[in-house]
């Protein structure tokens, strides 16, 4: 499918401080793309470059074939944007804010706007500074969706939303996707990205370290297997096995918890030599994968780098 967002070797620094370095990726039309990374990794910098709020030092970013900096006005007609920190005029009510942005966009589909307001159950009569964090986020979400944009660029869109409203948000993203919109979202809520996105990019210290489908990323298996034995088993038995990254002794040696990369064949065969009481295996969550990429040494496994 045709790429609607094309980022090529995008680089941005703030004086001497690193922003992002040589970031390249493409997002096909109609995809929901998750952009993951810890604080300060460069997610917001990338998004602000896409929104032409920052000028790139090098590289290019295009949306719908248009240059993000040179043709930003045309792009903004196509895009709905949620910033990481919703900052709006504190003295306007939610209704006034939405009316203002509807006017700046040259008008919006009023019944659809009313539907969004009802869907998120927003009180329009309170001033922005009187809203709770979640309600502030609702205002910003509605203004991003209200003109049925072709592309949604959302920076931590569910931050501050309660689980019920997160579900509503998931529904809004699903509807947007079904109507052909492309969604580019950054998030710390990895389970949500797992639910919502079709592909994921992971950024670390300004560099894109991984990009791939959710299934591909999860394929970098890192099992956790807990095996209970009838009698204590020396942990060294498992520590030297191929694929075993970590051994944790539990229950005074009667059980071990193993972190395994790749095949579990050797572990299963070795365990079979002892009287096994139980064996439990945990599927790695995206959270686990994510944390692994940002472990202290920061090394990216070689085999992981090839997954696309």
């Amino acid at each position, binding site marked *: 499918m045709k790429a609607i967002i094309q980022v090529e070797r995008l680089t941005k620094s703030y004086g001497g401080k690193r922003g992002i370095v040589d970031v390249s990726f493409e997002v096909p039309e109609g995809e929901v793309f998750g952009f993951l990374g810890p604080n300060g990794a460069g997610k917001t910098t990338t998004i602000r470059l896409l929104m*032409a709020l920052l000028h790139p030092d090098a590289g290019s970013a295009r949306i719908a074939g248009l240059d993000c900096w040179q043709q930003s006005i045309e792009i903004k007609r196509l895009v*709905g944007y949620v910033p990481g920190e919703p*900052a709006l005029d504190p003295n306007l009510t939610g209704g006034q804010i939405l009316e203002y942005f509807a006017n700046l966009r040259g008008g919006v589909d009023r019944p659809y706007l009313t539907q969004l307001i009802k869907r998120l159950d927003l009180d329009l009569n309170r001033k922005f*500074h009187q809203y709770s964090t979640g309600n502030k986020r609702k205002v910003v979400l509605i203004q991003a969706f209200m003109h049925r944009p072709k592309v949604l660029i959302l920076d931590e869109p569910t931050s501050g939303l309660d689980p019920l409203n997160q579900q509503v948000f998931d529904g809004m993203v699903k509807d947007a996707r079904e109507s052909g919109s492309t969604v580019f979202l950054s998030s710390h809520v990895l389970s949500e990205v797992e639910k919502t996105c079709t592909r994921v990019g992971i950024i670390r210290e300004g560099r894109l370290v991984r990009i791939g489908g959710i299934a591909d990323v999860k394929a970098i298996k890192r099992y956790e297997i807990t095996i209970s034995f009838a009698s204590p088993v020396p942990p060294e038995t498992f520590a030297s096995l191929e694929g075993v990254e970590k051994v944790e002794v539990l229950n005074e040696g009667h059980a071990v918890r193993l972190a395994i990369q790749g095949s579990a064949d050797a572990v299963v065969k070795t365990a079979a030599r002892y009287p096994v009481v139980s064996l439990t295996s945990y599927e790695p969550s995206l959270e686990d994968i994510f944390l692994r990429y940002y472990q202290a040494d920061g090394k990216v496994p070689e085999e992981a780098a090839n997954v696309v």
Partner: protein
Amino acid sequence: MWFKSVLVKTLRDYRIAILGWGIGMGLVVVSPMATVSTLISTPQQRAELASLAASFAWNAELVAPTVGGYATFKIGIFIFLICVWPLLAASRMLRGEEERGSMDVLLSLPRSRVRVAVEKVAAMWVALLAMGVLIGLVAFAGGEQFKGDFNVVDALLFGLDLALVCAVFGGLALLISQFTQERGTAAGWTAALLLVFIVLDMVHRVIPNTVWISQLSPIYYYNLSKPLVPSYGASAGGMLVLAGLSVGLAAVAVWLFARRDVGDTVALPAWLRLPQRAARANVMPAGEWSLRSIYARGLGMVAMPTLWWTLGIAGGAAWFVVVIKQSEAKLQELASGSSFFQTLITQFGSSNAGFNANLLSAIFLILPLLLMAFAVTQVNRWSSDEVDGRLDIVLSTPQSRLFVLLGRFAALTTATIVIGVMTLAATALAASAAGLKLDTGNLAAATLGMIPMGLLVAAVGYLAAGWLRTAADTGLLSFLLAAWFFISFIGPDLKLPDGTLRLSPFYYYGTPLVHGLQLADMVLLVSVGVLALALGSVRFMRKDIAV
């Protein structure tokens, strides 16, 4: 060390203001000392001044032929500016922290609300005292340099008097902020009350038997002390009243703060509350004029400040017109007997112009300064909107950066024009009602001529906002404003070269109430403003937003 307590941390926040405001205001006091010797060089001039002092209560210290007396007169004009810092600091002290949400964290510490508030108030008082000491020491140094006849204790008492009156307005701002949702509203109300109190203090100088009215104003008690005038001295009673007011206002504010919800306001008595609106339907405010465009929204944002500043500038100008008419006979009698007074007045006017026009011309020099200060506050808002990220979503709509900047600037231009026109209307009406004859063309020139001055400051501010963050931008503009005013106000006395005098926009504004506006000068001012705005626009179109 700086983070040991709320008091010390708050003092740390004030450290730059203490130094800057203290030394800056100290220099303001010293500047006129440099020029006084030339104004009272002959025994005849001294004698004239002494006789004036005996017969007229209008700024008696003006006519006291001393270095300290002249400085006291000059500093009197700036009492509004001096009170700006405590007014802003106190309105920000509790309400500002609540707006930012940092008060919640502060109050989660094992400290009572009263203690937190008291420590913050104490920090402001310490800061004001430190400023007072700095002002006093700089004034003393100036006195030593220019042969003033006051000693270091007099100078420190002068600083203390200033600190006390500042503490009163700080306390007032703190109290008002307990009733407002936003710190800006509290600062606006306090500034308006400050203007009212300044006017109240003046009443007894021009209308006989009205001392009781002036006694309602804290400024009256500040003016009871003139420590730099040795024959006048300091008034312990006046200072005690100021100290009592400061403590009283702050105590009530802290008491209210300890009893209300954080983030909410003190509930007013039922008879003071606005009638409750019926529950509004949850519908969009379609058709609201201020939401139609960037320009309309800019107007909506600037509307309330414009109202307050119009009341201050136009109302103040009209009041001056009435006062001058009422005291015309007395002032003319004084002027006819004093060549010094005549020289002083014609410094801002012309020997050919009428007495009233000359006197008003001197007073009208303050009006463009105030309009320029209004422009500084609006530049501050533009800059903080960008820095705080409030432009991000606006710029995510299909509006060009240039259109956004020009829309906001156009709204500010409209506000500036409104203030200028209202000032013209108010002064013309006041002159007509009081029976004061003023040249209509010159009056229009004096009031409408302020508009390019305000817009010049705004344009320079927009340009500087392309590189500087909000505080630095506001600081730069404030510095420029002070520098320009002193170049024009003190410069001629200091015999500054013409090239230096021409650096100030006030030079090009001139004395329009007497001489009218010089077209070439206005064109130059407007051209510089347009150039600054053009450069500011180019910078804004290319810069990283909120970085």
